[in-house]
């Protein structure tokens, strides 16, 4: 299996994207911001189309729009967190602009770029070039490290923001920085592996880890481990069964782990 270059690239990118999603996902779930992550991944798509309309590199649009929207979300809400209703209204409008851009793209001078934009929606981990895989891995690693470094103040500001302020943590700045980190993961993973994979890897492993343990560092490690295991197993499964898309296999494993943990913790009465 590893004699194929696309499999090696998939494992390289997948491992570190999963690591980033697992670690940041644990905090996303703790802060109840899964919807924000979901909205960012849809916004990324609009960024890609916008870049295509302007004739820019797709990545410029992806990163610029997701980071701007993340900062906007931080500015709109208290404690650097926007509430679900506001997120829903803003992202519906941005998608509406996306519809407009699709129309413009079909008639505009850069019509050929539409293909690149559409790939964003259905990006596949098996289609990565070795350069792309390396970039995805580096960004994944950088975000994971940043999350680990800022972990203590982030947990404190989420669980007890008054205490965090007393200890000198700048809660709003931290909240905004967190959303920007989420935006970077979103923009990179949307392009490399597709928006679908991103949401599953953020919500499912972290949700399972939160059910299993309340201890922060153990939960963080567990969440990352489940995410990475789901990616490794999913890629292998998809290689063995060609009609099974890799994204579907990975999500099936991650969601399966979540369901198993939910059943076990409920039966034990600890969930």
């Amino acid at each position: 299996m590893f004699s194929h270059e696309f499999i090696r690239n998939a494992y390289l990118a997948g491992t570190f994207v999963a690591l980033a999603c697992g670690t940041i996902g644990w905090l996303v779930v703790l802060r109840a911001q899964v919807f924000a992550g979901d909205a960012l991944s849809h916004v990324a798509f609009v960024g890609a189309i916008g870049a295509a309309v302007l004739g820019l590199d797709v990545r410029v649009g992806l990163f610029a729009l997701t980071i701007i929207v993340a900062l906007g979300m931080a500015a709109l809400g208290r404690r650097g967190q926007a509430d679900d209703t506001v997120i829903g209204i803003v992202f519906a409008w941005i998608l509406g602009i996306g519809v407009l851009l699709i129309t413009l793209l079909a008639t505009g001078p850069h019509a050929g770029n539409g293909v690149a934009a559409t790939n964003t929606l259905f990006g596949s981990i098996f289609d990565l070039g070795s350069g792309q895989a390396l970039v995805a891995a580096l960004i994944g690693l950088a975000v994971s490290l940043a999350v680990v470094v800022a972990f203590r103040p982030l947990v404190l500001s989420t669980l007890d923001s008054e205490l965090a302020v007393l200890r000198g943590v700048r809660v709003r700045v931290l909240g905004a920085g967190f959303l920007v980190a989420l935006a970077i993961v979103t923009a990179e993973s949307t392009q490399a592996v597709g928006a679908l994979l991103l949401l599953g890897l953020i919500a499912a492993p972290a949700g399972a880890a939160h059910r299993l343990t309340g201890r922060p560092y153990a939960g963080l490690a567990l969440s990352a481990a489940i995410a990475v295991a789901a990616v490794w197993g999913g890629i292998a499964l998809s290689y063995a069964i060609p009609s099974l898309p890799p994204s579907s296999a990975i999500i099936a494993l991650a969601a399966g782990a979540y369901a198993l943990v939910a059943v076990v913790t409920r039966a034990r009465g600890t969930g």
Partner: protein
Amino acid sequence: MNPSLSLNIVDDIRQLTTFPFMVNALEAGTIVAVLAALTGWYTVLRRQAFAGHTLSVMAFPGATGAALAGIPIAFGYYIACGAAALAMRRAGRGRTASRSAETAAIGTIQATGLAIGYLFLSLNHQVLGGPETLLFGTFLGISRGQVLALLAIGAGALIVLAFAARPLLLATLDRELARASGLPVRALDLAFLLILAAAVATTSQITGALLVFALLVAPPAAAQKLTVRPLPSLALSVVFALLVVWLGLGVAYFSPYPVGFWTTTFAFGLYVLAAGYSRVRG
């Protein structure tokens, strides 16, 4: 005939209703606007926007699954949305009734639904009638039969909602009091999720999966900014949603840009105006 806007409003409206496809679009838009505004009012109050979005995304596995099984697409929508609502109920408010556990469960359900949709698509090998139609809707290809089906399902969902309206309001605003006064709070949770599933599956057939929020969340949120009294707020929500749909369809007819862009823009503008007004008033 080329649509051209004049200062004569009567003439403009006559132009709008010349073609059967526009009449069907206006009727379907009116039905889903009323349905989405009333269901959405509770959705916003219960802070279930993420659940609403997840249900709307279930259009994807619904449509691909229906294509694979060879049944009408609309059936697929209702089956997938209903299944997701049931899964959310089981996964959501368990003994760990915290907000973060709930969002993790909903996110996992959404990703699973999408993954199943991708699997169906790849098993089917045939191109689905344009993914963009699925996501962004087709206001302009609605048949007479579809309008009647929307009307029947919309009316059914609203009758159920009307029966549950008062207890649901109490259970939303004060869960403990509702439980103490003997209301079946958990059954109400499930009933509302199922009504929401029916409303979202109906609305997304017209607006597309991604633009449901222009009708489901923005008009009720704007109405709740202006008044907190339930009945006026519900009525205002319906008025706003109708305004968004009618203006969106009307302006799109006379302009080269798509309906989805105009409806979401009007919905967003409406919310910003309402939020600004309530802030100025204090």
